[in-house]
């Protein structure tokens, strides 16, 4: 009995030692990969940061309105965030590569899925950034046009343009990420429909006077109001 226990224990220890001996080189490879990954990720981060500074990415981000969002959330600049993101993705990639070397069953599928998800994440980020850029550009264009046309409450018009674009961009981003697609589609439909209805009602009620004035100016020849039209800029 005693011998049997000792035999089993020694066999278990032997198997443990064999397992350890089996995994130790793989663990070392993983650690080496993680270390190399850290170095590569750091270099990539420095290069990406330099390129982003060279192309004045922060100004682009400022134009897109993304910088303001980041400042409000007490986050670093867009250049810093993007370069850090690249660092972590690169390093995580190497770590996961190292983990796959360990040969742990089940984990390989998860790692493969993660790598398959990365392109979608990049596309979503790309859509989000340029969507914000477009929202900022078109809302400013609407604001300037409204101010120069002497339209009342130009900021509301500008805000409406920005909101529509952002809602649309968010729905595309969520769809790309595959997060709550049905919910987002429904939410987008409801939000967009409500916005359009609200605008239609607002224009219908608020635009009556404007339409009347326009028609009067167009078709009724009355006393011409003195205005700057009489001044030629050139």
């Amino acid at each position, binding site marked *: 009995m005693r011998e049997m226990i000792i035999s089993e224990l020694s066999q278990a220890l032997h198997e443990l030692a064999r397992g350890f001996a089996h995994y130790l080189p793989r663990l070392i490879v993983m650690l080496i990969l993680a270390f190399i990954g850290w170095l590569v990720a750091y270099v990539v981060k420095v290069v990406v940061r330099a390129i982003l500074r060279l192309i004045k990415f922060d100004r682009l981000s400022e134009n897109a309105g993304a910088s303001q969002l980041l400042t409000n959330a007490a986050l670093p600049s867009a250049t810093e965030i993007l370069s850090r993101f690249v660092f972590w993705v690169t390093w995580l990639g190497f770590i996961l590569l190292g983990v796959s070397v360990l040969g742990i069953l089940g984990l390989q599928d998860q790692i493969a899925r993660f790598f398959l998800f990365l392109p979608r994440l990049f596309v979503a980020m790309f859509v989000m950034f340029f969507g914000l850029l477009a929202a900022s550009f078109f809302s*400013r264009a609407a604001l300037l046009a409204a*101010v120069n046309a002497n339209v009342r409450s130009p900021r509301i018009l500008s805000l409406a343009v920005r909101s529509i674009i952002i809602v649309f961009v968010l729905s595309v981003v969520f769809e790309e990420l595959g997060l709550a697609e049905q919910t987002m589609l429904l939410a987008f439909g409801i939000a967009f429909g409500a916005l359009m209805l609200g605008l239609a009602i607002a224009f219908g009620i608020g635009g009556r006077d404007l339409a009347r004035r326009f028609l009067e100016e167009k078709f009724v020849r009355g006393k011409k109001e003195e205005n700057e039209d009489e001044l*030629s*800029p050139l």
Partner: protein
Amino acid sequence: MEDESFLTDDFLRQLINVGEVDILVGLPTHNNAKTIGPIVNTIRSGILRGFPRERAVIINADGGSRDGTPGLVTGISIDDMRPASSLYALRTLHSISTNYGNGPKSGVALRTILAAAELLRAKACIVMSPESANVQPEWISSLLWPIYRDGFDLVSPTYRRHKFDGLLMTNLLYPMIRALYGVRIREAYMPEFGFSNRLGSQFLSQNGWSDGIGGTGAELRFTLAAITGGYRVCQSFLGEKKHIERHASDLVPTLRQTVGALFSALESDFPVWSKVSGSQPLPTTGSDQELLLDPMRVNRKRLREMFSTGVAELESVFQVILSPSTLAELQRIARLGEDDFQYSAELWVRTVYEFAASYQKSVISRDHIIQALAPLFRGRVCTFLIENRTGSANDVEHNIEGLCLEFERLKPYLLQLWKSRE
């Protein structure tokens, strides 16, 4: 020439049929049927009177008119003139037309006229506006003689204007070009002007017709090219200038084709204008500037309101373009009542220079920068109207001169902005 292929085969054939000419009159048009007939008659009359022995041609560059404008230009025969005026030409007066596209493009029209002038080896050329309401036959001689006889390369017009006419010219273009380029040219954005083949060919050979030069404001770029190229520039007094009716909505497109063109040119001309100090008058035939003082009722209140609204609503845009001190000052005057309102010359000059520097650095879309200037220009116009409401011609001239000197005085500020933002 950068590219001759933009001229159609049919147009080239017509030019070959014409042969060499002495005088070329360019007429850019787009749906000008209402005004073009009398203008063409006046041009022909001017040529018959002033240049009966010279070979002349009228080149109509049309932007796809749908009202039969090209037909009106080419259809008027020289014989239509004779019974009325008893004028006779010793040479054939040709009149040909070409369609350069669908829609008015002043840059393409000018390029077409310049290319035709080069191919026909015209000795002296003029471009006439199809929108001038009161062109006189004497204008043709006034614009052509300095080129044809005196060897000038560019003849810029001066007009008799109402004191409140051409406010963008008097409050921005004239003083800024004078301060930066050192040349006192009254009408840098010229509706009518004369030029030599030498200048035309040089301008035509410049690169960038497909983007910068070929866009809006080509006339202003042409003037600046003559100044920076060291060509002989003069002014010629034409007479009273009457416009076709303009609308408030014309301001932004006008700013694009004038101020936008000027700001854009500052970038490439920096080596020239950064070294200029002071300004010199130009040789001028006739008066430099004549002002009419007829009473005119203008809604200053509306101008001031549009300025105040603009300053309030566009704060986020101005924060990017203007310095904090300039913006704070604008916000302060935007809150003032009608009686106290004053957009001073110094503040206006600082505003314009900061806009120019921001345009150069493209802090936001360049077109948005130009659009954002419109409400501020209205504010400056309001102050100009108040300051000169009861002023005589001398008073108005004195005020314009003061503004010009302010632009010259603050030029180092622009240079500082230009360099600091690099």
